[in-house]
C-alpha cells in the first residue's frame, strides 16, 4: 500500500468541522475562530453549497473567501442586529469555543471561579445563552484535558441537554449540540441520554487517551472509528482557503 504523506491535524479537524454542517442547507454557518471558520467555508465549497457564510464582519460572501481575503463577492448584509434576528429565528449553526464543558454539554466561556469575583475573567457569556437556546451549536476545543472537560462548569454560558430539557419541549426542540471537536477526537450527544459520546478518535490517539483527558464519564461505544482523513479534494479547498497556513500555526501536529 502506498504511504500517504503526513496528514496535518489541522486539516483533519477542519474536515471534521465541515462535516458538522452536513445537512444544514440554507442557513447561516458561523465559525468563531480560524478552524471553525475554515470548516464552515470548506462545507460551503463541498458538501453544503447552500450555506451562507460571512466575512466575519457584516457581509455574506458568495465566493470562496480565503482567511484575511478582501476580494469579496458580497451577497448579503448581516450587521449584528440581523445576526440576532437570524439566530433567534433559528436559521444559524455556530461553531464556537468553550473553556469548560460538562457531560451534558453545558459550556462556559464567561469566567473561571465564582462569577461575583472570578479568579479569571474570560469573555463573559456573550451570545452563548441565546445561541444555545435558539439554534444548533457545535464546539471546537483545541486543548482536550480534564480541566476543560469537567463534571461541572463554573458559569453556564451555553445550555446543555439537561438545562434545555428542563425548559420544556419547545426549547428542547430548538436546542441541538451537534459536535464537539478537539485536538484528540470528535464527540457528540447521539445517544438516548444525550450524554457526551466518543464519536471518533484522530490518527495516533487511543480511546484511553481521550478517556484520560476527560474529567467525566464518557459514553464510549464498543467500536470507535478513526476520524476520517481529508480527501484530496478537501485538501485542495483548504489550501485555497488558507494559503498562508494560519491553521498549521494554530493547530500544530502533535
Amino acid at each position, binding site marked *: 500500500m502506498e504511504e500517504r504523506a503526513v496528514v496535518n491535524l489541522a486539516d483533519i479537524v477542519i474536515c471534521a468541522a465541515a462535516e458538522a454542517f452536513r445537512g444544514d442547507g440554507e442557513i447561516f454557518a458561523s465559525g468563531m475562530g480560524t478552524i471553525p471558520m475554515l470548516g464552515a467555508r470548506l462545507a460551503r465549497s463541498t458538501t453544503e453549497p447552500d450555506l451562507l457564510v460571512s466575512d466575519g464582519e457584516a457581509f455574506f460572501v458568495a465566493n470562496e473567501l480565503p482567511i484575511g481575503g478582501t476580494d469579496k463577492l458580497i451577497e448579503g448584509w448581516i450587521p449584528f442586529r440581523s445576526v440576532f434576528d437570524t439566530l433567534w429565528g433559528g436559521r444559524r449553526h455556530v461553531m464556537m469555543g468553550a473553556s469548560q464543558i460538562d457531560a451534558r454539554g453545558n459550556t462556559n466561556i464567561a469566567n473561571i471561579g465564582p462569577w461575583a469575583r472570578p479568579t479569571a475573567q474570560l469573555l463573559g457569556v456573550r451570545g452563548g445563552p441565546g445561541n*444555545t437556546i435558539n439554534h444548533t451549536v457545535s464546539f471546537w476545543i483545541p486543548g482536550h484535558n480534564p480541566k476543560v472537560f469537567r463534571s461541572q462548569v463554573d458559569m453556564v454560558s451555553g445550555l446543555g441537554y439537561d438545562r434545555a430539557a428542563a425548559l420544556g419541549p419547545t426549547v428542547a426542540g430548538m436546542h441541538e449540540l451537534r459536535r464537539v471537536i478537539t485536538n484528540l477526537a470528535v464527540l457528540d450527544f447521539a445517544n438516548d441520554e444525550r450524554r457526551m459520546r466518543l464519536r471518533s478518535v484522530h490518527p495516533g490517539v487511543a480511546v484511553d487517551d481521550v478517556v484520560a483527558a476527560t474529567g467525566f464519564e464518557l459514553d464510549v461505544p464498543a467500536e470507535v472509528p478513526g476520524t476520517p482523513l481529508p480527501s484530496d479534494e478537501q485538501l485542495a479547498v483548504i489550501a485555497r482557503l488558507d494559503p498562508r497556513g494560519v491553521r498549521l500555526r494554530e493547530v500544530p501536529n502533535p
Partner: protein
Amino acid sequence: MTEDDAVATLSSGMTIGIGGWGSRRKPMSLVRALLRSDLADLTIVAYGGPDVGLLAAAGKIRKLVYGFVSLDSIALEPHFRIARQTGTIPECVEYDEGMLQWALYAASLRLPFLPTRAGLGSGVMETNPSLRTVRSPYADGEELLAVPALPLDAAFVHLNRADARGNAQFLGPDLYFDDLFLGAARPGHRFVSCERVVDTADLLAEGSFHTLRINRSMVDGVIEAPNGAHFTNCQPDYERDERFQKAYAAAAADPEQWQAFAGRFLGGSEADYQAAVAAWRNEQS
C-alpha cells in the same frame, strides 16, 4: 458644542449608555471627557470595549451593565479583566448580547419589558436574581424571560457625519445599536459626536438615505470630533489603530506602566490627546 460642554450637563450617579461595539466606533472623545470630569458613581451600559476599560480603571463605575467587554483583536479588555478579578466595580449585570438589545429596545418603546428565550436556563438567570419570567397568554403557554427595560439618563454615540441639528449618518458596515442607545435615553443628554459636521444638504453626498438612521428628535447635542473614536475604528474614515491598542493593552496590564501611559495621553484636553497620539505615531515610524 464640545465634549466637555456635553459632560458638564451630567451629574454623578447617572446611567450613561455608550454606543459602538467592542473596539468599534466608540465615542472615545466623550469617554475621555468623562475621565477628565469629577463625575462619579456612574452606571455604564455598553457592548463594552476600551470605553468600559478606561472608566473602570479611573474608578468612575458604580454599576456596569454589559453584553461583553472586549477589544476585538485582543479578546479580553485588560482593565475590565483586572476590575472583575479584583472586585473594584461594586455592581455588575452581565447579559446575553441579545438581552441587552432587548433591554434598550424596551426602554426606547416605553415598554416595561420584552420577552425572549435568550438567557433562560443559563448562568445569567442565576447571577441576576431580579430577572423575572412571563408566561405567554396564548395557547402555547410558554414561559419566557422578561428582559426589563433599561432607561438611560444619557447616551453617547459616535457617527461618521451629522448636521448641526443632530441628523446623523453611519457610513460603515454596521450601525450596531446606536439608535437604541439614543432611544433608551430620555431627552436632555443624548449626544452624538461625529467625524465631520456637514450641511444638511450634504448628508446624502457620501451615503444613501439608508444610512440616515439617527434623526434630530433622538439627539440633544452634536460634537464635531475628528478622530474622535480613536483608537477604536470608524470605518470607512479609519481603521482601528491596532498598534496603539496593543500599547494600551500592554500598559493596562501593569500599574506603573499604566500611570505613565495615562499621564502621557489622558492628562489633558482632547486636543492634547490627539497631539500626543500624533507624536507617538511619529516615534513609532
